[in-house]
């Protein structure tokens, strides 16, 4: 077993983990951050995307021990509970989801994309989200959601209200 200390959504967690434990399993099973889901479990689908030290990663492809000393942001850490993150608002307004299973990963990948490129073109959005699969194939509205999120975020923080 290994000792780890990881800051998740602003709270520091200490834990004992087997080295083979994947970050996504630690998030869900050990500290109850079940907003992050396991999709394909083969690094393809991106449903488990979280931010690790501010950049998107697939949490099924990171060992929990490798996150020791790092900062993780999950879908549950985007909002303080009173006001949605603008990306969440945009996905709701543009109906950027169907069954919703891919949504936590789509939202986190979008947050990462917009942090690097605040005004992406449609092509850049599609390439930026190429690691995230929607098996409902609802990509059209997802792309619209990302574009709308970019508009909301460039207009200022207050536009993110629900």
């Amino acid at each position, binding site marked *: 077993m290994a000792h780890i200390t990881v800051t998740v959504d602003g709270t520091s967690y200490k834990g004992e983990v087997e080295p083979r434990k994947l970050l996504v399993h630690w998030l869900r099973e050990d500290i109850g951050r079940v907003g992050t889901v396991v999709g394909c479990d083969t*690094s393809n689908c991106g449903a488990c995307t979280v931010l690790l030290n501010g950049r998107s990663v697939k949490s099924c492809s990171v*060992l929990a021990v490798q996150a020791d000393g790092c900062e993780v942001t999950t879908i549950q850490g985007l909002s303080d509970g009173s006001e949605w993150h603008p990306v969440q608002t945009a996905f709701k307004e543009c109906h950027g989801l169907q069954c919703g299973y891919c949504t936590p990963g789509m939202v986190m990948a979008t947050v990462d994309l917009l942090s690097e490129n605040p005004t992406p073109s449609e092509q850049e959005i599609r390439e930026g989200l*190429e690691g995230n699969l929607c098996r409902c194939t609802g990509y059209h509205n997802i792309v619209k959601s990302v574009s709308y999120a970019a508009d909301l975020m460039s207009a200022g923080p207050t536009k993110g209200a629900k």
Partner: protein
Amino acid sequence: MIPVEFDYVKVTTIDQAIAALKSGGEDSKIISGGQSLLPVLRLRMADPSVLVDCGGIDEMLGVREDGDSITIGAATTHHAVMSSPLVQQHALLLAQATATVADPAIRHRGTSGGALAHADPAGDVPAAALALNASFTIAGPGGRRTVAAKDFFLDYFTTAVGPDEILVSFSIPKCDWGSHYAKFNRTAQAWAIVGVAAVVNVEGGVIKEARIGLTNMAPTAVRASTVEAALVGASSAADITAAAMHAADGTRATSDLHAKADYREHLARVITARAVRAASGI
């Protein structure tokens, strides 16, 4: 899917890494970003007894200028490599090939050195390293040695890095030739069915020299040397197309779910012409 049990050692220096590999024995394995290794472990296609995490060794991180070349630490992430101004200025082909690797989240974790040492024949980075005449610094119990790109890739998933050794960095002679990486795949984030990495030196509208690496046309990335020779003196699209007809010469393409060998050979000829035209502007 959950990997088999293993021990995990995080090291901060090359010497610690070599010592950990030695004490772990032949079943120890290096991990850094883990974007190739963790999927393999989850599928239980490998069961190492010890993982030695080299992702935090300072010497293996970052891109630096070394006179006439640039040196890239083996644990530098794909994202850091493709965003590096030094790489974009002096080894643009590497940035172009890296930008096609998997997807953004994988590129945030996966490392350039990991992709090279893993040596997947369908990986994009090895062909670029070959075309750029990279050299590789390998550390082991007996010290350090440098291996040229042509001697680095030995076979399917096999490189000159021994089981008790570690790839520290790779260096690329500064190259301001035109460059392009053309990748043929069917879907987003898919592996290359065939890829072509090209750097071309054009003077007065005539190709003086070209170096071309092929992805997934043999058990390792390979140089298309017949094409390189045929391109010298080329000055028109027709010349390039004619030279590219040799792209499959001497290759050993395989058949799989995605393509039969003869289709790969056809693709190599077509994609090589496209890559050279894009790189040369001819």
